[in-house]
């Protein structure tokens, strides 16, 4: 751990290095009656080393499927990654054999899930579940793996880590379980930590603790975070850069600061307006009318058009491209095309 704290400078340098490069990713689900759900439809983005990238969107926007695609854990059938490339540190994950991919999961990419209550196996101890990953990837002996598990639990803030390793998930609270999940995801020192709605199921007071812990751990482990959430409040707290997803596509991409101060896409504006603000005195919160269309029935043209306030005729004709507005801002909307 010590060597990592004095390598802060190195992290600054690494920021320019690309860790994850996703290009043209398409994950489709083949359903009954020949319906095809385009859950992820031509998604491209990069994640730099040391960066926290947030993937934001409503339920059904394709953000979780994107993260599961990165792990190649799409339930198949019916799901299938049909196109694109996912490069982690130069290795194309989609071309790996299943066996090699298993060496990536849990080792190069750690993952935290939404429901800490159900994401841990109820019949094994916390220690067993952390040690298992270490024994698998780091080839540690059982005893060493448990020792390391205790260290990891201490690191994520368990004062009585020696007891916790012998406890079962049901003996811990939701926040504690999520801490244990973080310890587990970080156990093999992954390059990338994917957190799929890590705080959604937690109390608001615990949410901040967990987010702070994730960021702290990211620094300590020199890792990067891909944070999937529907909560823009969470994003503001931790993210460097934000991708807004709608209908299986990225509709806006910007640095967190830029996105909050200068949102462009009507969907992003709608999302930001639906966050309660304590300073302004509004009677009713704004909401975006309607729901995300099901992924097998996207409208022709812009997928957001039926819900958009600024909809124009041409929005119904063809889907706009994701265009670069300036160097750190991209948007998919005809309002900003000349």
């Amino acid at each position: 751990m010590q060597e990592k704290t004095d390598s802060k400078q190195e992290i600054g340098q690494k920021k320019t290095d690309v860790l994850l490069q996703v290009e043209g990713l398409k994950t489709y689900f083949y359903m009954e009656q020949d319906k095809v759900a385009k859950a992820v439809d031509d998604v491209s983005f990069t994640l730099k080393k040391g960066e926290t990238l947030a993937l934001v969107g409503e339920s059904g926007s394709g953000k979780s499927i994107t993260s599961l695609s990165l792990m190649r854990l799409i339930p198949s059938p019916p799901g299938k990654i049909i196109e694109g490339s996912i490069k982690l540190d130069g290795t194309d994950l989609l071309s790996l054999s299943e066996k090699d991919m298993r060496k990536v999961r849990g080792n190069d990419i750690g993952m935290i899930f939404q429901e800490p209550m159900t994401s841990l196996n109820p019949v094994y101890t916390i220690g067993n579940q952390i040690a298992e990953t270490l024994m698998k990837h780091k080839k540690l002996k059982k005893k060493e793996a448990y020792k390391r598990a205790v260290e990891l639990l201490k690191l994520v803030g368990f004062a009585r880590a020696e007891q916790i390793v012998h406890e079962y998930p049901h003996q811990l609270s939701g926040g504690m379980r999520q801490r244990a999940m973080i310890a587990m995801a970080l156990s093999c020192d992954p390059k990338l930590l994917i957190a799929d709605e890590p705080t959604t199921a937690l109390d608001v007071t615990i949410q901040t603790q967990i987010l702070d812990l994730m960021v702290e751990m990211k620094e300590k482990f020199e890792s990067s975070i891909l944070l999937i959430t529907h909560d823009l409040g969470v994003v503001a707290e931790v993210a460097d850069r934000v991708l807004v997803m709608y209908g299986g596509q990225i509709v806006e991409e910007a640095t967190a600061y830029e996105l909050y101060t200068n949102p462009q896409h009507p969907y992003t504006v709608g999302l930001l307006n639906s966050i309660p603000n304590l300073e302004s005195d509004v009677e009713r919160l704004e909401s975006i009318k309607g729901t995300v269309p099901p992924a097998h029935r996207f409208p022709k043209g812009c997928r957001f058009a039926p819900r958009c306030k600024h909809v124009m005729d041409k929005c119904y004709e063809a889907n706009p491209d994701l265009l670069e507005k300036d160097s750190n801002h991209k948007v998919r909307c005809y309002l900003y095309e000349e």
Partner: protein
Amino acid sequence: MHKYIIRRILQFIPMLFLITIVVFALAKAAPGDVLSGERLDPNIPAEVYDMRREALGLNDHITVQYWNWLSSVATGDLGTSMQYTGRSVAELINARVMNTVYLSLFALGVTLAFAIPIGIYSATRKYSLFDYGATTFAFLGLATPNFFAGLLAIYVFGFMLGWFPSQGTVSTVGLSGMELFLDKLKHLVLPGFTLGLASTASYMRYMRTEILEVKGSDFIRTAKAKGLSNHSVLYKHTLRNALLPIITLLGLEFGTLLSGAIITERVFSYPGLGQLFLTSVQNRDYPVIMAINLILAITILIGNLLADIFYAVVDPRIRYD
């Protein structure tokens, strides 16, 4: 854990007491008594019957009869059989109980040995040819009554193919050691498989369903995200959770096996408790009926107790409440 087991054993005692009441009441509620059959003889005057009833205590108040029965059962005296005059119930049961135990254990072994692996294999290859085959077999097995399966087994494997004996527990007297063991085992095959058939079929389905259900859980996704092999995802993370409901069902299985044994033993002329029970019912031999009922009830209670204890061993969530 110890507290839990002790508490469960303590709950056992009032249950046992209630069972004795039910067993006794059922026997008393049935019409007629052991003398009913003989009453048809017109040469015996009615007073003789009354004397015999008085001697047997059948004219006492029902609570007195219950108390007499309960106190003798508590001291291990199960009474005297009425059909086999003069022989004690304990003696009749002792001569047969082990045969039924062997038969039930054999059937249970068949169930576990087939149902669990086939269920797992079916679930991991859902909608494959194997899965469809297993499902078809399961429904056939469930739909075939015990006695019919037994007759079929006797006809095909006993009579046509002649592979296994279809009657009794031993071929000849005078066998000993390994020879005796193998001979007994051979005699167990047909009744054992017959008795285990329905359970095998249903447990296969339970196992398949449970595995499929657990496979969809969040913690299985976590296990996969940790990069574990399919083998450890299935046998470590899925199987143990999928077995939990099976354990509960196995506790109840003791009862199913013993009641199934009554019919199976009859079909295979297998001298066990089931056969004794049937003849006792036909002859209104209430002391024997009550004793066997009591044994069945206690076996089921013990089965449930074992299931609860085993469940607590496997599922940590049970232990501490």
